[in-house]
């Protein structure tokens, strides 16, 4: 049985942890996707940098594809 809260989370609602402090709440209320930070904090710093490199590579490839598409 899936409750409403779980369903809402499945639909993208971030569950603010009960122990969230004022800075965490402020960032959340300002619209920051705190799930991204949660995910990053679960990685080691080196894993974060490696993931960042992958993101850059992907975005640059996408940018290049967009340029090529625009040139046609």
């Amino acid at each position, binding site marked *: 049985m899936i409750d409403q809260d779980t369903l809402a989370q499945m639909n993208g609602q971030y569950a603010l942890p009960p122990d969230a402090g004022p*800075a965490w709440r*402020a*960032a959340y209320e300002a619209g*920051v*996707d705190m799930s991204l930070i949660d995910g990053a904090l679960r990685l080691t710093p080196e894993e974060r940098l490696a993931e960042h*490199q992958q993101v850059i590579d992907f*975005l*640059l490839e996408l940018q290049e594809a967009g340029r090529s598409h625009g040139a046609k």
Partner: protein
Amino acid sequence: MAQNDQALLTRLKDNGLDFVVIGGVCVVYHGGPLATFDLDICCPFGVENVRKIESAVNDLHPFHRLTANQLPLETTRSVFGELRNLYLQTDLGKLDCLSEVAGLGNFDAVLPRSVVAALSYGEFRFLNLDALIASKKAAGREQDLAAVRYLLAIKEKSEQQNNLL
């Protein structure tokens, strides 16, 4: 043009430059969710240090990317002693070298506010979280203030976890 921060960092280190990673890559290091397309470092300047930077990138076709005519770095050796910042485009991406960090000061002030990161490709210094927050607050642009929001949240969470230990 590819951005390869790992390769740039390794080259700078291999050429004997003392530096601290600042800016967006430092935000990523501390857990901030963003993608940044340049590598920012703070380092001491002067002819000797600019030559070390040049040695690190001289086979990467470096040029001053903010100059209208994209001056190749090698053609500007006569003013190396007058440079306080370098905004380079290289074959491995953008490399911005700054002599000062907003809110912190020059390299001598930045160095004690850094942490050593032992990465698989070497040890590198990054601004510590408090210094990064201070620099972002001082820079004050919209993107910096947005970063301050989640850096404060990361700091708070880190302190909560430390209190549990």
